[in-house]
């Protein structure tokens, strides 16, 4: 044995060093995922657009009364993506719409993840009565067709941005719950949980100290996929007129394009930009999610 005295670092310092190393390792393997990087770049562009929207186009651009362009005019130098039925710039609408779409997508995902993780860990950890009740509830939400449930909820709650977020959040968690439950069951079978029980560790100790840290990577990978679905759902609900009527989102743009005869008028500039943006963002989130899954899932390595 060497006799060099190692100065013990504080627990926090050690944890910080290890965390930094773990992030470094993670980034090194994520960088190899080409699709993931492409998705990340697309996302960065959209996030930047959403954050800088007020700088690019003042909020006046969204006011119908302040519209300066002709009605449903094709792209010109003044309006690069043409105008809508009230003469507003479609480009400004698309840029501003990204704010709502991203906000709803991310906020709804946070709700969905929280419910899914809680229910998943709960149903995996508590065998017997409570566990099977939670599992049945998950099944119930899983088999109910999403759209009718979301439409019913949105109608009951009324149209507002918050309600759209809530509706999407409370209808999109069962997949996550299933995934988390499976992982919880696998963690629960590991001997260190039995050891925790021998020490007299309660349910909370077992779930927070042992199960949750082992489930988190999976939840994170799942998050990006859920964001994609949530954005699509927001577009769907807005297209059906269930979104916030006072805010422009890509879904509400598609809705008004459709109801104002943009299709029969051949106004492609009104339909394509929001549609393509939805496709691009959803694709980007999916690409990142798949890449994360590949990096974090040991079986895929």
């Amino acid at each position, binding site marked *: 044995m060497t006799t060099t005295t190692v100065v013990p670092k504080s*627990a926090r310092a*050690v944890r910080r060093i290890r965390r930094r190393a773990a992030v470094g390792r993670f980034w090194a393997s994520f960088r190899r995922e080409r699709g993931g990087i492409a998705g990340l770049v697309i996302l960065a562009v959209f996030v930047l657009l959403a954050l800088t929207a007020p700088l690019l186009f003042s909020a006046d651009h969204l006011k119908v009364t302040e519209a300066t362009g002709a009605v449903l005019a094709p792209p010109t130098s003044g309006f690069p993506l043409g105008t809508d039925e009230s003469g507003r710039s479609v480009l400004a609408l698309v840029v501003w719409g990204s704010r709502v779409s991203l906000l709803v997508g991310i906020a709804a995902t946070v709700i969905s993840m929280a419910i899914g993780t809680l229910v998943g860990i709960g149903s995996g950890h508590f065998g017997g009565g409570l566990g099977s009740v939670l599992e049945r509830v998950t099944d119930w939400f899983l088999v109910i067709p999403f759209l009718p449930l979301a439409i019913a909820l949105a109608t009951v709650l009324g149209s507002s941005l918050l309600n759209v977020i809530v509706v999407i959040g409370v209808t999109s968690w069962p997949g996550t719950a299933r995934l988390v439950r499976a992982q919880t069951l696998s963690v629960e079978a590991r*001997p*260190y949980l039995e*050891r925790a*029980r021998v*020490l*007299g560790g309660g349910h909370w100790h077992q779930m927070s*100290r042992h199960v949750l*840290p082992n489930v988190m990577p999976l939840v994170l990978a799942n998050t990006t996929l859920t964001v994609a679905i949530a954005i699509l759902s927001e577009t769907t609900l807005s297209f059906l007129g269930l979104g916030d009527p006072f805010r422009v989102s890509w879904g509400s743009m598609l809705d008004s394009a459709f109801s104002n005869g943009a299709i029969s008028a051949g106004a492609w500039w009104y339909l394509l930009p929001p549609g393509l943006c939805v496709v691009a963002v959803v694709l980007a989130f999916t690409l990142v999610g798949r890449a994360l899954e590949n990096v974090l899932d040991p079986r895929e390595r």
Partner: protein
Amino acid sequence: MTVVDEKGSYQGARREDALLRVTEVQKYFPITGGGVLKRKVGDVKAVENISFDIVPGETLGIVGESGCGKSTAGRTVMKLLDPTAGKIEFEGRDITNLSRKEMVPLRREMQMIFQDPYSSLNPRHTVGAIISAPFKVQGVKPARGVQAEVQDLMARVGLNPEHFNRYPNEFSGGQRQRIGIARAIALRPKLIVCDEPVSALDVSIQAQVVNLLEDLQDEFRLAYVFIAHDLSVVRHISDRIAVMYLGRIMEIADAERIYDGPLHPYTHALTSAVPLPDPNAERGRERILLRGDLPSPINPPSGCVFRTRCPKAQDLCAEEIPLLRELAPGHYGACHFPEEKHLI
């Protein structure tokens, strides 16, 4: 003194100062058919009517083939599994039907060491966090602070106290088992159930860990239930040994008697398989080979469960279950035809 109850089964020589007393404990795992209603179609009879007691400072070895129910017995005694029938007493208190919450204070008194030193430590926690978990969980605040206590414990089990910030994957198997031991003794328990504590380790490391366990036993007057399949390790550490076969105790006696004068044919066969260091003795001795496999615990043989592999089996063995009875002073066996040459 043999206590035989109305069912005619052994209750062990009762010792008044017993720390742990296990009386006719059974553990059945139900087998359910498919479908929603979970119709019960049978039982895996993992542990069947086992009885033993342990006094403070004593080591009871439990040996048997894999699948004989020795680990299930250890987990049932620890109340990690609820016994199907029987009675478990700890320091005279009946703990058989205590709930998980009611067991929590008792966890300070009875601890467990696990077989696999790799998977029984959470890879995401530092050694310091792992060893200090008992204090946190039980709400015990050592006078000198948790960290000083943890470092003391690490030194006590032969680990470098400066390594408390390391993670389990930075340690060898033997060191990991020492971490598990430090954690088990943290709250100064009176009883530790060791479930195959050395079978995952190299032979050279096994001896160190067994010696550590013995030192700790002397220091803290610990009682061990030492579950293992390695007969020479068990012989080394045990005061008394119980031999299990298919969920039942076949023979229970002082360690030396089990090895030098086994009365049950199964024990005899087991001990005859232990290699002897002396080549002449090795060449000259009789070796009993058991044919066949362990029967299914779902549908055990009638009468004596060992009869299907026993070289001495007769008609009686299929008809009547042999009871664990005192065949020689302090030496209990469950056999109709015990090895006569060892009967004194």
